[in-house]
C-alpha cells in the first residue's frame, strides 16, 4: 500500500490493526497511560515502604503481600525493578515518542502517513506483546524481575542467584520493547527525511519534529547495543554461556561483568536524551506559540540538540566512576559530561529569549511548558554534581542520583507529556479538555513533585543508598526518617492529583466541547486540517511557504500569525 492510500476501515479487525499513524498514536497513548498507572502505583508502594519500613501496607497490603500486608525485601526489590523498567520502556517511551511522535510528526511535515505504515503497526504490536510478557512476569513462580532496571550481571544472569522466571521474562519483554522502539525510530527517520511536503525544508521543520528526528537517530544507534547486551544476558541465563559471568560461579573463564555495564550505559546515557529531546522540542514550539513570538535562536537550538546527540554516546563512563575505571579515562568522561552543559545552556537561553518581549498567554499547555523550564533547570544543573568524579563517588547509587534523574526523567518528561497531551488533545480527539482543571492539576503536581524530589536530594546528601528496602537499618541515616515520611506522603498526594488529569482526560474524550481546527492560533501544518484530521490528513498536499513560528506578524482578518502553508508578501 502506498502511504496515504487508506481505505475506509472495513471492520473491527482493520480498525484494531490499523496502519493509520493517528490510530497507532492513540493506541500507544492508551497503552502508555495503562502502564503509567500501574508503574505509578508501584511508586506509591515503594515510598510507603521507605516511609514506614516493614509496616503493614494499608488497603492493598493483604491482597498483594499476603497475611499481615507487610512487604518483604523481595517484594520491594521487584517493585522498584518493575517501576523503573515499566516507566522507561512502557510508559514514557510509548506516550512521548510512540503516541505524540506518531500522531504529530506526519501532520507537522505535511505527510499523509509515516513512511512505512505497516512497519508502524508492527512496532506497536511488538510493544503490546512486550507489555503482555512484562505483565505475565508478575504471576510466574519466583515472581517478577528483581535485578533493578539496570539489570547488572551476575545478579541478573546467574540462575542460582535470581531464581525467578520473571527475570527471564523481563529480558524478553525489554528486548521486545527495544525492537519496537528501533523499528519505530527507523520509520521516523525515513519519514522526516523523505515525506516532507514541498517547501518543508529542514530549516522550516518545527522544533518538535526536529527533536523527534534526533531522538530517533539516537534510538537507531543505541537500542541495538542494549538489545545485544540483554540477549547475551539471556544466553548466560538460559544457555549456560559466560559472557558476563566471572569468578567461582562462572562455568567458563574469560567472562566479564564490567563489559555489560559499558554496553548498558553506552545505551543508557543516550537513552536519557532520547526521552528528554522530545520534551525540549515540544517545549520550544509551545513557548513560541503561547508567547506569540518566533522561537528565539531556532538554528542555535537545532545545532545545540545535534551537539547533544553527538556527545551523548561518549559520556556513559560517568555512570561507572565507582567501578574502578582508570582515573585518566574517568577525567575524560568528567570533561565530556560537563561539556553537555554548553548546548543545554543555549537551549535555556533560547527558551527565555522566546518569552522575552512576547505576549504570554497562560493556556494549559503553556503552563505545563513553563513548569518544565523550572524543573529541568533543577534536573540539568544537578547533573553537574554527577559529572564530578570525586563527588560522584560519594553520591553514586544514593538518592541524590535518584532525585536528579527523577527531576529530568519524571518531572520534566511527565510535565512534557501533559503539555503535549493538553496541546494536541483537540487535534487528536476533536474535543477540548477543561482548562481550569488542567491548571489546578499542574499547580498541585508541580508543588508535590518538588516536595518529593527535593526530599530525595536531602536524603542523597546524607548518603542514603538507593534500592535498600529499609534504609533505617543504618544508624547514620536515622535523621532522615522525617524526610522519608515527607516524600511518602508527597508521593501519595502526587498520585491522587493525577486522578484529576485522568478524570478530565477520559471525560473530555466523550463530553468535552467540540474543538475548532486551530484552537491555539498555531502556525504549524497540523492545525491547518480539521480536528480530528481526516484519515488521509490533507485534502491536497500542502505547499509550505514559511517558517514554523511566524507569530506576532499581523495577518489578514486580525490574525497575528502566518500559517506555514500561506504565502505572504514581505512588506
Amino acid at each position: 500500500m502506498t502511504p496515504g492510500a487508506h481505505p475506509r476501515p472495513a471492520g473491527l479487525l482493520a480498525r484494531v490493526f490499523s496502519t493509520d499513524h493517528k490510530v497507532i498514536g492513540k493506541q500507544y497513548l492508551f497503552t502508555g497511560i495503562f502502564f503509567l498507572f500501574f508503574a505509578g502505583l508501584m511508586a506509591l508502594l515503594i515510598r510507603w515502604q521507605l516511609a514506614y519500613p516493614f509496616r503493614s501496607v494499608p488497603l492493598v497490603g493483604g491482597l498483594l503481600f499476603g497475611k499481615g500486608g507487610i512487604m518483604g525485601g523481595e517484594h520491594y526489590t521487584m517493585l522498584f525493578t518493575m517501576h523503573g523498567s515499566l516507566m522507561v520502556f512502557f510508559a514514557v517511551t510509548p506516550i512521548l515518542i510512540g503516541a505524540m511522535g506518531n500522531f504529530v510528526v506526519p501532520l507537522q511535515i505535511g505527510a499523509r502517513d509515516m513512511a512505512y505504515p505497516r512497519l508502524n503497526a508492527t512496532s506497536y504490536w511488538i510493544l503490546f506483546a512486550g507489555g503482555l510478557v512484562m505483565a505475565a512476569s508478575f504471576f510466574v513462580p519466583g515472581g517478577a524481575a528483581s535485578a533493578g532496571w539496570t539489570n547488572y550481571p551476575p545478579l541478573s544472569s546467574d540462575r542460582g542467584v535470581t531464581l525467578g522466571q520473571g527475570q527471564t521474562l523481563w529480558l524478553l519483554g525489554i528486548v521486545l520493547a527495544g525492537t519496537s522502539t528501533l523499528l519505530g525510530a527507523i520509520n521516523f527517520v525515513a519519514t522526516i527525511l523523505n515525506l516532507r511536503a514541498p517547501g518543508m525544508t529542514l530549516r522550516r521543520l518545527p522544533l518538535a519534529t526536529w527533536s523527534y528526528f534526533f531522538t530517533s537517530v539516537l534510538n537507531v544507534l543505541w537500542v541495538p547495543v542494549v538489545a545485544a547486551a540483554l540477549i547475551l544476558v539471556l544466553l548466560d541465563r538460559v544457555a549456560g554461556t559466560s559472557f558476563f559471568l566471572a569468578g567461582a560461579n562462572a562455568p567458563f573463564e574469560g567472562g566479564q561483568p564490567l563489559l555489560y555495564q559499558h554496553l548498558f550505559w553506552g545505551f543508557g546515557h543516550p537513552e536519557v536524551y532520547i526521552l528528554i529531546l522530545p520534551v525540549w522540542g515540544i517545549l520550544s514550539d509551545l513557548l513560541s506559540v503561547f508567547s506569540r513570538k518566533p522561537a528565539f535562536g531556532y538554528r542555535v537550538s537545532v545545532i545545540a540538540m545535534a551537539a547533544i546527540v553527538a556527545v551523548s554516546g561518549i559520556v556513559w563512563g560517568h555512570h561507572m566512576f565507582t567501578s574502578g575505571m582508570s582515573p585518566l579515562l574517568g577525567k575524560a568522561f568528567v570533561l565530556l559530561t560537563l561539556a553537555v552543559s554548553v548546548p543545554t545552556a543555549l537551549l535555556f537561553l533560547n527558551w527565555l529569549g522566546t518569552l522575552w518581549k512576547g505576549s504570554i498567554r497562560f493556556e494549559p499547555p503553556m503552563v505545563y511548558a513553563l513548569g518544565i523550564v523550572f524543573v529541568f533547570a533543577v534536573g540539568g544543573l544537578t547533573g553537574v554534581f554527577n559529572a564530578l568524579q570525586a563527588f560522584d563517588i560519594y553520591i553514586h547509587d544514593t538518592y541524590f542520583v535518584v532525585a536528579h534523574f527523577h527531576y529530568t526523567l519524571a518531572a520534566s518528561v511527565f510535565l512534557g507529556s501533559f503539555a503535549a497531551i493538553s496541546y494536541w488533545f483537540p487535534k487528536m480527539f476533536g474535543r477540548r479538555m477543561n482548562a481550569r482543571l488542567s491548571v489546578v492539576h499542574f499547580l498541585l503536581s508541580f508543588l508535590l513533585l518538588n516536595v518529593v524530589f527535593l526530599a530525595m536530594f536531602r536524603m542523597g546528601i546524607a548518603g542514603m543508598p538507593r534500592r535498600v528496602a529499609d534504609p533505617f537499618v543504618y544508624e547514620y541515616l536515622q535523621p532522615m526518617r522525617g524526610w522519608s515520611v515527607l516524600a511518602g506522603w508527597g508521593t501519595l498526594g502526587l498520585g491522587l492529583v493525577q486522578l484529576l488529569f485522568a478524570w478530565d482526560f477520559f471525560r473530555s474524550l466523550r463530553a468535552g466541547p467540540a474543538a475548532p481546527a486551530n484552537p491555539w492560533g498555531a502556525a504549524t501544518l497540523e492545525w491547518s486540517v480539521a480536528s480530528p484530521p481526516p484519515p488521509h490528513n490533507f485534502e491536497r498536499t500542502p505547499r509550505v511557504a514559511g517558517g514554523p513560528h511566524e507569530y506576532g506578524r499581523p495577518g489578514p482578518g486580525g490574525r497575528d500569525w502566518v500559517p506555514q502553508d500561506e504565502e505572504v508578501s514581505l512588506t
Partner: protein
Amino acid sequence: MGFPEDASLHGHLLDRLYGHAFWLTLAAFLAVVAILGWCLVRYRARPGRLPTYTHGSGRGALLLSLGLAFAVFVGIDLNLALEDHRVFDALVGTPPDPAKAFRIQVMPQQFVWNVRYPGEDGEFGTDDDLTTLNQIHVPAGRPVLVELRSMDVVHSFFLPHFRIKQDALPGLTTRAYFQATKTGTYEVACAELCGLEHYRMRGFLHVGSEEEVAEWIARTREEYGADQELWRAWTRMKRESD
C-alpha cells in the same frame, strides 16, 4: 551541608567541592528563575500590547549565545573539572605505598562482608591471617588500603563517613583507600543492588589507635583464627592474567 560526619583525612576536600558546585549551580538556577519570573510578569498578554517580532538570529543574539557558551564552559565546566581533578587525585587517584599502609582484603558475598587481615608477616593466605565477618578494625592516622573482590555478584563498599565507595566485582580486584582521622565506630553500607536482602548488608568499621587494633587482631585471632577454606575463593578466582 548535610553530609554525615567526616572522619577522614580527605573528606573535607570533597565537601568543599560540593559547596563550590552548589553555589555555582544555584547562581545559574536563580538567574534562570529570575529571568523566567520577570518575563512572565512583564510580558504577560495584555490588551493593546504587541509582542516584538524577532527570530533571535541576528548578530546580537549570536554574540550572546557565544558569550554564554564561553561563560558556562569556563566558569562552570572547566572551573569544576579542575577542582574535581585535584580532589580526585587526593582522594582516590594516589594509592598509598602498600609497605606503609594498613592492608586488608574484603570479599563480599550475599549478604555479608568477609574481611581478611594479613597478620604480622604482611602476607595474605598464610597461617597468621585473621578472618572476620562484617567487622573491620583499622588504625587512625595511617592510610588504609582495601583490596576488594566479590564472591558472587557485584557489591559496592561504601563508607559514608569517609566519602569513598568502590564496587567489588567477581573475577577482578579493585582497590579503595582512605585514612581515618577520628576514632570510633562507623558503618559500612552496600551501595550496589546485590539481591533480595541487599538492605541487610551492613558492616562496621572500628577506628582505634595502632595499639588497640593490634591488640584486637591478636586477641581475635586466638579465638577465631582464619577460615582459609572460605578464602580459597579469592585465589581460585584469580586468573592467569591477573
